[in-house]
């Protein structure tokens, strides 16, 4: 398998605070890769650099062999990178259908006619289980559906690499299973997925590779099993969870 995305020693500082520090890893084409780590570990910041919200302070992001340093924020979707936002950003005054249509009109598909885009949006809505809710405003839906909408809109841009930022947070076990199934289906379409997740069951279930972050640094990388048996990970990540559980 070829490498789709490559992060080379990227760092990001916010006024002296190093949110991400010298992180490197790569994502294989058509794989599902997970990123885990406690709050404030720098996961979302990493996503922001991969999706062009801001450039890294140091290091390079290489996508399909190309350095993304000169790519403008709004050009990422046209090269096949789409993302969801942890703090959801629905288009509030537009219906669910219009939210997804907007993604279809721009992005990699770049459909010219609104009508054609609406048809494609209906397909995506069907696929993501939002069809029944297509005419409501996002604000009237619960969190699980809002998260789905984030995914649907990103999917409508026809991505090759889909970045999912905690889209399973706050879902109950059934909803989590549904979401896991959806991401499998998306992956089966040939879309590479990089996801940030706290729900270990989902990560273990979906990901071939897991990257663990802590205080802005990558502390280890491996299969879910390897990672979860790593003493350092247990100490700083799972150990903490045990404390709160008990």
């Amino acid at each position, binding site marked *: 398998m070829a490498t789709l995305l490559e992060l080379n020693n990227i760092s990001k500082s916010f006024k002296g605070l190093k949110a991400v520090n010298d992180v490197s890893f790569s994502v294989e084409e058509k794989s599902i890769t997970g990123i885990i780590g406690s709050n404030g570990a720098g996961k979302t910041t990493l996503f922001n650099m991969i999706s062009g919200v801001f450039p890294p302070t140091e290091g390079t992001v290489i996508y399909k062999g190309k350095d993304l340093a000169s790519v403008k924020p*709004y050009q990422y979707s046209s090269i096949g990178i*789409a993302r969801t936002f942890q703090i959801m950003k629905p288009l509030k005054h537009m219906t669910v259908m219009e939210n997804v249509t*907007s993604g279809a009109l*721009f992005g990699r598909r770049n*459909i010219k006619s609104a009508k054609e885009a*609406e048809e494609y949006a209906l397909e995506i809505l069907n696929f993501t289980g939002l069809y029944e809710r297509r005419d409501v405003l996002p604000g009237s839906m619960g969190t699980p559906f809002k998260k789905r909408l984030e995914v649907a809109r990103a999917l409508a841009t026809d991505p090759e690499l889909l970045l999912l930022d905690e889209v399973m947070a706050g879902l109950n076990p059934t909803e989590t299973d549904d979401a896991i199934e959806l991401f499998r289906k998306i992956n089966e379409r040939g879309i590479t997925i990089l996801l940030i997740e706290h729900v270990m069951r989902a990560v273990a279930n979906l990901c071939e590779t897991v990257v663990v972050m802590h205080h802005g640094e990558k502390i280890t990388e491996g299969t879910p099993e390897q990672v979860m048996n790593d003493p350092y990970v247990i100490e700083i990540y799972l150990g903490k969870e045990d404390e709160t559980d008990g």
Partner: protein
Amino acid sequence: MMKKRFGSRHIGALLLLLILALIPVIIRNTYIQTIFILIFYTASASLAWSVLGGLTGQLSLGHAAFMGLGAYTSTLLLVNANLSPWLSIPIAFVFVGLICMLLLSPCFVLHGPYFTLVTIAFSYAFLNLFTNWDYAGKGQGIVLPFGAEDFALMRFKSKTSYFYIALCMMVLFYIVLRLIDRSKLGYGLKTVREDEGTANAIGISPLKYKMIATFISAGMIAVCGVFYANYFRFIDPEIMAESQAIEYVLPAIIGGIGSVTGPLIGAFIIVPLSQYLNAALSSVVSGANLVVYAVILIAVVMFQPTGIMGWYQNSKLKKKLSGFFDNLDRKLGFDKSQNA
């Protein structure tokens, strides 16, 4: 989905238009006609404002200046080159559209009230420029040449001709807005309005779409300016003041910001009201109408921020009306079961 084929709704709209078009025939009273001209003009200007303010969410208070630039463009071309105002229409559209787009483009990184403040500064800069500019008649303004009626010079004795010009302008603008609203461009503008982060993430450049919106919006209100100059036949720099811009913003806010029909409805309410208030209150305290504007504005923003159309979208009235029209469609045999 939302798209309806030709049906009773369209017939209803055409009937309404026909009634409006017959007003000068039925009502000879010129005062009533001038009020309608003012309504059409204000509605057109408010529709123009809506492209940037409503669809794109960039609340500009500079539109009186954009309008004024259109009025001056047409007037200076008429006075100095005897150019027909009809030809000034496309010239003003492109010229003013481009100027505003280029001058405002560095300011599109500003959000919310900061952008609004810049547009206010923009209008005062132009107001001052024209107040001190010899060629443009300085603060005294310019009187357009009087003379015999001449269609080519958009010069008419009767109000009726202006009535129809203004009506055409309003209808045209409304159609343009509807088309934009449902097009790819409209999706781009609205996405930028809702969230620039999302816009970027799905491939929309906020800067580009704000520039397009400014070009169209300023161009359209410049056309209103051409009409204004040739109708009132006198312009001065005061028409560019921010306080004038309120008159174009208010109908959109009352009618429902972001809705295409909102500015129309708002204009039909606010213009007659302000005419009445002007007549009734100006003898008591001058400027009292401005106080009433402020009160209306505060009331709308506090209790019904989505305006009349926002209320209508979820109202029983809408359900009743659409039931009525669907019924009529069925009876008249318009097939609208085509859509998926």
